[in-house]
């Protein structure tokens, strides 16, 4: 066995989160935080992909922390539906704070889907971030909005028929419907909502010289990301140079609903982490 696992509860805003710290038998001093998607699933995720990833990178000397968001798995609190305007920033920051309290200061993040969006939102508040992998990160709209934009009119008609006035009483529901309609309308007239949050966050990370890997599959948020690349983000990422890069794969990565996509993720992340560690020795390592 090349690792052992330590179970922990750690404090977040008003609740306690549950996490598993994987400790490699030969540590390289770097810890990888693994914030995942927003479903109410176990911290192992579909087909244990998060468990397998944590154990695979432990073989390369990386610590890792996988944890449950508030209201999920073994964490305290009530489940909160994910929205772009309300990412799980507090949970990601609580996890980084706990890691630092364990003496693990050298941090990288490997995040998927809504976990990637939450990590992007938390990144400006994390000091000394040494690398970030964002897999299928939302760019300007969530799954429902992205899917609604591509639904046929038949689907929209069916849902309008089912709509009840009572559902529109809550401001949250009204905002939700407004975003869905706006997403569809934007697709028809080929005008995309101006949302600079994603690009601004990526630009800031590049300015801070944080190595980035942006990975998209054949599904999910790839069209939204490609649209941003066509604007100015493509040039910014290219100028940053390796190990920062974008990676488009032919597999479907949304939810990692194939074994091939899971294996690809583990191989890609493992080799990129190795590349980053080997290219940029930390000042404290050089001093020692």
């Amino acid at each position, binding site marked *: 066995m090349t690792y052992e696992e330590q179970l922990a*509860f750690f404090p977040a805003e008003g609740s306690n989160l*549950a996490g598993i710290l994987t400790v490699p038998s030969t540590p390289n001093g770097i810890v990888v935080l693994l914030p995942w998607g927003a*479903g*109410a699933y176990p911290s*192992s995720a*579909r087909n*244990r992909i998060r468990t397998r990833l944590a154990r695979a990178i432990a073989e390369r000397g990386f610590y890792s922390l996988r944890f449950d968001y508030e209201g999920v798995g073994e964490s305290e609190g009530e489940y909160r*539906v994910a929205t772009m305007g309300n990412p799980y920033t507090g949970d990601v920051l609580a996890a980084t704070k706990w890691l630092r309290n364990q003496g693990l200061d050298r941090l990288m993040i490997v995040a998927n889907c809504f976990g990637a969006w939450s990590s992007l939102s938390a990144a400006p508040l994390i000091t000394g971030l040494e690398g970030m992998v964002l897999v299928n990160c939302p760019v300007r709209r969530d799954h429902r909005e992205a899917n609604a934009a591509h639904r046929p009119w038949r689907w929209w008609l069916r849902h309008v028929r089912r709509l009840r006035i009572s559902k529109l009483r809550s401001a949250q529901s009204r905002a939700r419907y407004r975003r869905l309609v706006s997403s569809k309308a934007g697709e028809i007239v080929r005008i995309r909502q101006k949302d600079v949050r994603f690009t601004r966050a990526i630009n800031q990370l590049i300015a801070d010289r944080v190595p980035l890997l942006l990975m998209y599959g054949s599904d999910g948020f790839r069209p939204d990301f490609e649209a941003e690349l066509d604007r100015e983000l493509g040039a910014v990422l290219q100028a940053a140079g390796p190990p920062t890069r974008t990676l488009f794969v032919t597999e479907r990565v949304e939810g990692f609903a194939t*074994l091939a996509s899971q294996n690809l993720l583990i191989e890609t992340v493992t080799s990129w982490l190795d590349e980053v560690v080997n290219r940029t020795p930390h000042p404290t390592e050089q001093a020692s």
Partner: protein
Amino acid sequence: MSLAVRVDEATGVEERLEHLAGPRGLLYSWSARPPGAEALVVICSSVLGDFVSNYHRERQLGRALAAQGQAVIRFHYTGEGNSQGDRRDLTFESMCADAEAVLAHSDTLSYSSLAVVGTRVGALVAAATVAKSPWVPLALWEPVTDPARFIQEAGRVRKMSSLSHQSTASPSWREELAKHQVLDILGYDLYPAFVESLGNVDLLTLLGITSRKVLVARFGTATDSLESLAAALRARGLEVSTGSFGPQESWWLDKETVADSENLISATTAWLKGAVSSERRP
């Protein structure tokens, strides 16, 4: 072995994240111990897609039971979730051996009553594990009565998925399993050892002929199969309660929404409370 403990200041409930010793490695577990609890409920999950789909309901059940004063243990089988072990080695026998290890651990906690909850394939595990203890009440959520159908259902899901993503038809799941020694069911790996281990298992045989208290809960509104199962169990002397709770679950498909399970949870906790109060450890 690792242990993390927290105590809720308001309720006094002690929650534990704990590695338990299993026959093939460490088992990840969560438990809740309310102050003064006399009964313990062990929850036997299912595996693969069911494990993920049902996880939030089991979390809710665990917390609801703790809130009404019953101790609870939930755990992951070897080769599943956060436990040690390889999925290739997951079999019905290994699942039962893990559940037995958890029950042996629960014996050391000295609660006067015990009940077991089993979900889907976990219902078979629960039934097998307490077969020799007819005084233990069993709550079964959407039990897999015929494992062959469980596997066929997985094969159908795989076929539907390949039809929607490929232009050519894929070979049958049996052919592919024989050829590649693994089957990809929407990102869940199904190995021959697991399929073969379920070959001769069936719920009625495992439950035997006893006077055990059993709750059978079905998801969805169709009650035909529920009533026929209940009739078969009553014919064997079991004291059966039943209930149907919507909505129906599509087990292998991930959803970002959380199904409303309030009725299921409250009915199960109420039934368990009554069942454990009348059935004590001999």
